[in-house]
């Protein structure tokens, strides 16, 4: 008897093989040079045309790139590992700064109805702004593309964490707060021993949403500011008309995004409690 999990895995593999097979078969093979007519040579179409590459080519590319991910051969030729490293550095810095601000502020908002009401209009107006809309202002004020990219990540990571923390903290069961009160726990101990663990699942959910958004936004931000990073890499390979590399980097963006998400998924299951 196979378990549901292993059957699902088998089906996933089958779907993958099927889709890749269709893709592979639907792309006409490049004609060999001797088969070209004189006319075709004259018309210049003999140079290999940019087209969607078949999966086999991409798999070879993945192998090549991942077997040497950290090479550095000039400003426009860096290994994928280095590019992802730059992107991760920006995402984690912006996200970290946002967490340092959003979680304590969310605590305050969640504990105090006055703060909640007075800050709510600001949050409601700032939150729907596309983080990239901040980019020109950031570039002007910060005068540094690196700092601007981090700022954009910071500003897009802040809202889910802030709102979820405030929501989680304000929703802590009154019974638990009463337990803290009857045991004279004091503000800090109450926050650390009761409110934080009670609200942790909601807070971590906010962090998980934030890191997901940050990873979405960094690709676009790096396309704008250029220089380094996975977003810049995609754009650069597009300019080189190297679609194999474009597809490869898209794949890598997905893999890294999934990894970031699952890290927070693990954290989430750690802090979740059953009532």
């Amino acid at each position, binding site marked *: 008897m196979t378990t549901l999990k292993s059957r699902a895995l088998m089906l996933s593999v089958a779907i993958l093989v099927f889709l890749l097979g269709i893709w592979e078969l639907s792309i006409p093979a490049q004609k060999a040079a001797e088969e070209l007519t004189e006319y075709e040579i004259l018309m210049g179409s003999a140079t290999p045309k940019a087209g969607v590459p078949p999966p086999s080519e991409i798999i070879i590319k993945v192998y090549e790139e991942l077997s040497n991910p950290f090479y550095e051969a000039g400003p426009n030729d860096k290994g994928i590992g280095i590019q992802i490293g730059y992107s991760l550095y920006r995402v984690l810095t912006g996200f970290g700064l946002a967490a340092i601000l959003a979680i304590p502020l969310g605590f305050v908002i969640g504990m105090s109805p006055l703060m909640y009401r007075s800050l709510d209009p600001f949050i409601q107006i700032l939150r729907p702004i596309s983080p990239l809309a901040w980019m020109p202002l950031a570039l002007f004020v910060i005068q540094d593309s690196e700092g601007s990219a981090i700022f954009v990540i910071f500003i897009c990571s802040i809202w889910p964490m802030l709102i979820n923390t405030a929501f989680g903290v304000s929703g802590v069961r009154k*019974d*638990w707060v*009463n*337990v803290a*009160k*009857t*045991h*004279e*726990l004091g503000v800090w*101990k109450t926050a650390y*021993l*009761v409110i934080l*663990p*009670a609200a*942790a699942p909601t807070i971590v959910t906010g962090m998980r949403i934030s890191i997901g958004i940050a990873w979405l936004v960094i690709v676009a931000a790096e396309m704008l500011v250029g220089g380094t990073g996975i977003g810049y890499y995609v754009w650069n390979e597009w300019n080189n008309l190297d679609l194999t590399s474009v597809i490869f980097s898209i794949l890598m963006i997905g893999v890294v995004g999934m990894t970031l998400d699952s890290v927070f998924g693990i954290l989430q299951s750690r*802090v979740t*409690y*059953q*009532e």
Partner: protein
Amino acid sequence: MTQSFLSVEGLTQRYPSSESGELTVFENLDLKIEKGEFVSITGHSGCGKSTILNVLAGLDEASEGVVIMEGREVSGPSLDRGVVFQNYSLLPWLSALRNVTFAVESRHPEWSADQVKEHANYYLNLVGLNDGVEYRKPSQLSGGMRQRVSIARAFATEPKLLLLDEPFGALDALTRGTIQDELLKIWAGTGQTIFMITHDVDEAIYLSDRILLMSNGPYARIAESVEIEIDRPRSRGSIVEDALYYDIRNHLVQFLTSRSKEFSGPSSESDGHLPKMVRLSENSIIKKKLMAL
């Protein structure tokens, strides 16, 4: 007259309500409890027992009136008043043991971790939670086990006043009996004062010095304070043979089944007064005299 350990004066609790604008749970309630007394309160569901207990604990503020304990007005909760909540109120992310140790830590901040753990385990043992059960989270415990953790937590902080809201409600008869006896032992050993809510008439008689009878709400009143003049130590087996036992029991049941409805509506007197003291021993003496005639 010396001051009582705990005295409640003119206690009134109103809540805003949609239909009539205001719900008066009780009004002008007066009550005195002496140091070391074991007082139970009983009455129908929703009459306001938990509301009184929350005010005594300092968790809720009454609309009017004051609670004075040892000469000082109660404002806000304190470790001197330990509460066993009706719904246990354990912290679900902590093990049973941690649920007790955090309380012990805040009572005795100067103790070492080992001392705290030993103290907590002593009380968990007392309520029959050991052999690894203490390391489980509340969600992995039965209702009765959770209730016992909650009891152990309150015992372990050794408050001057124990406030118990139906502390034995979820326990089977055997466990209930054991923990009741432990409670009596602790109470006898420490001189604590106990205020307990219960729906169980036999439990109330077995444990209490005095039983307060609360009439139905709204405008609930503590109508009577029935003295339980049965000598201690009491034993579960022989208490039922005491001549007074059935008189008291009948009196309580009769109150709960019929007389508790009679007091509804706002009280006519504006100033509150203490609940009517009832001594059934006097009754039975009169009864015996009547029978002798």
